[in-house]
């Protein structure tokens, strides 16, 4: 199988892009967390909701113990935790990969140094 110098050049360019020397198009395919059986997805949503409720309830309980205002802060935090759990589960299902924050990605092509994170 003969390879022309152009083929070799393409392969070198592809390898260099993979190694990150030349910025290539950034693949923003989300990690495939939405695959799997329906029961797996259901468990994911359920654990998200339960975990957020547990964390917020615990935080509220600690705040109550510190400030002595049982049980109001804990109740308020449980409502907040419910919202946070739904938010997490929604983001996971929409494929937003548990992103925190509403910011869209600053850049989809990292060619003009607009990253602002360095």
């Amino acid at each position, binding site marked *: 199988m003969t390879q022309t110098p152009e083929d070799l050049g393409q392969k070198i360019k592809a390898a260099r892009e*993979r190694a990150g020397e030349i910025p290539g198009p950034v693949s923003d395919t989300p990690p495939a967390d939405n695959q799997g059986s329906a029961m797996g997805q259901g468990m994911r949503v359920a654990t*998200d909701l339960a975990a957020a409720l547990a964390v917020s309830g615990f935080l509220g309980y600690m705040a109550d113990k510190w400030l002595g205002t049982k049980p109001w802060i804990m109740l308020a935090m449980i409502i907040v935790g419910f919202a946070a759990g739904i*938010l997490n589960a929604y983001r996971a299902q929409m494929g937003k990969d548990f992103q*925190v*924050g509403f910011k869209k990605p600053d850049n989809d092509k990292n060619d003009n140094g607009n990253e602002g*994170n360095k």
Partner: protein
Amino acid sequence: MSSNPLEQFVIKPIVPLQLAGYDVSFTQSALFMVVAIVAATALMTLSVRPKAMVPGRWQNVSEMFYEFISGMVSDNLGHEGKKYFPFVFSIFMIVLMGNLIGLIPYAFTFTSHIIVTFALAATVFVLATLVGIFRHGLHFFSLFLPAGLPWYLMPLIVVIELVSYMSRPVSLSVRLFANMMAGHTMLKVFAGFSVMLGVYLGVLPMLLNVALLGLETMIAFIQAYVFAVLTCVYLKDAIELH
């Protein structure tokens, strides 16, 4: 032999040790953690001894794991995420080996304890948070303050985002723990049915257990993969703040 399906998760010390009043015995959970680490290390080091260009079977397995995690890290974290590859790979191999070795009869699944999975998830969470703080300074907390919100909504949204951020290690650990514990409990329950139904009818739950063991093997791989993927995602969130 007890037929209580939850009795398999009881921790039994093998070498009782005490340190300053704390019980630091070497338990069967610790033993299987050592077995998992030795298995993972042996798989990755001994199998590439031949260093063949056309890999044999074991070297192929080793290379498959490496490339799989390497691809996942570079997909999620980009080129500069390569420095996190050893951490993600270690997490993946520990969880995978823990899950798989637990499927051997009479072995113990150390990932079926919430304290173990929570320790792993807390390590990931603390690492991602520290990486974010050291990289961005206090600007890291802009992660919780989205842009373009009316001022009266901001406190509530910040609290919700904070809770959502802190519930991620909990959900990460509970996912792995619940899957492993449920799987092994189901195996024990159906095996108990086999014992109860006798020799002839007892074949049916046994066949179900055979299928269930296959499902559990698949779940072992999937849960290790999900754990590693979410580790990458949390690191990416901390590095890129979105």
